[in-house]
């Protein structure tokens, strides 16, 4: 099972490396959205500092949604998904591997580049840690929840719009808590509570979402 897991993650990373434009699109989208805000809002440092966590979080959420459609689509189209369903490894484990790979490809780069982007908002260096940590905990939750939606809408026409409608309500709590972490830290309350909540959500999503997505895939492929 571990061999299958590793093999699948490596395969997805290799495929992403050979088709890097898909990955860059998401990252570029994130960078552009975040960079447009200081230009649009104006150069008031106080205001920028206040909106920074929210802007980074909203942009990360949208970027992650942009990439969702591709989690299973390619494997579905070329028949690999059927093989995964008939494999020796439980489908839930396979979905977990795919989501992890998907996060490494589309989520982790966002987390890594966000400190640089936060500079545009004159974001306090002391609070940067909290913001990055909240994104590092939050973006995998987005990928996990999104995988359920992607599995449910697999193979449908106009799946993109439906997918957004499906996952958005589930994304909102993550956004509120995630952006709230840096806000709370800025106001001197400390963001520990929010970070712990995010951690708990990540664990719950990590345990249940792959199986829910696996069940949804079985229905979609029928």
């Amino acid at each position: 099972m571990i061999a299958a897991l590793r093999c699948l993650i490596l395969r997805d990373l290799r495929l992403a490396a050979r088709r890097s434009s898909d990955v860059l699109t998401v990252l570029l989208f994130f960078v552009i959205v975040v960079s447009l805000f200081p230009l649009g809002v104006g150069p008031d440092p106080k205001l920028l500092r206040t909106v920074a966590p929210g802007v980074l979080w909203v942009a990360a959420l949208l970027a992650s949604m942009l990439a969702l459609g591709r989690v299973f689509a390619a494997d579905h189209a070329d028949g690999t998904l059927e093989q995964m369903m008939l494999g020796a490894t439980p489908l839930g484990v396979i979905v977990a591997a795919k989501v992890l790979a998907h996060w490494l490809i589309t989520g982790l780069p966002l987390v890594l580049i966000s400190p640089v982007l936060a500079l545009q908002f004159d974001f306090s260096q002391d609070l940067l840690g909290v913001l990055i940590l909240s994104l590092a905990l939050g973006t995998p939750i987005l990928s996990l929840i999104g995988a359920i939606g992607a599995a449910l809408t697999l193979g449908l026409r106009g799946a993109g719009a439906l997918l957004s409608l499906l996952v958005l309500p589930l994304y909102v709590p993550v956004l509120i808590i995630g952006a709230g972490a840096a806000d709370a830290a800025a106001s001197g309350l400390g963001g520990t509570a929010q970070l712990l909540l995010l951690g708990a959500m990540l664990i719950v999503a990590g345990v249940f979402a792959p199986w829910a997505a696996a069940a949804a895939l079985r229905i979609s492929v029928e």
Partner: protein
Amino acid sequence: MQTPLEAIDLRCVRGERTLFEGLSFTLEGGDLLRIGGPNGSGKTSLLRIACGLLEPESGEVRWGGESILRLKEEFWVRLLYIGHANALKDDMSAVENLGVASTLAGIVADGRQVAEALVRLGLAGRENLPVRVLSQGQRRRAALARLALGAAVPLWVLDEPFTALDAKAVENVQELMRGHVSRGGAVLYTTHHEADIGAAGSRRIDLAGG
């Protein structure tokens, strides 16, 4: 070598149409069962039901007396399914594709065995090219190379294995199927290719189509 696959009173409905009903068959080690019938008669649906990808409207498929939908992975490690789609990644080479496919199927194969399997299907010298540049027939060969690694898997389910293959490759694949049946494996397949594989235990079920 194994416990048999039993299909009991299967009924398949796609959309409004009943494709077949009351279909029962048993497949034991050494059997080579061909599903015939015109386009749209439900051959692929039947194979997908036999694999557990599709749930029948009524009836049940059993492996060793137990429903395959309950056995799940326990049944799927004993199954090698090659569908219409080749399940190949365009950006990876045939070797990489076959390596991933065998790992997913739970087949342990080292690099040498993978390379040999591809040579056996006539892909010598093209193993390391991205699948994107291969022709349709060569892709099909790369997909079918899994058969050469799947000797220990008791049940093969092949959906139109001979599509796009040339005469030489068809002979190769038939030889693999013959070998599997003579080892005591079972093969369930569909084809429009009228050729006698020439194995003892060959049978045929024709779906009427409706």
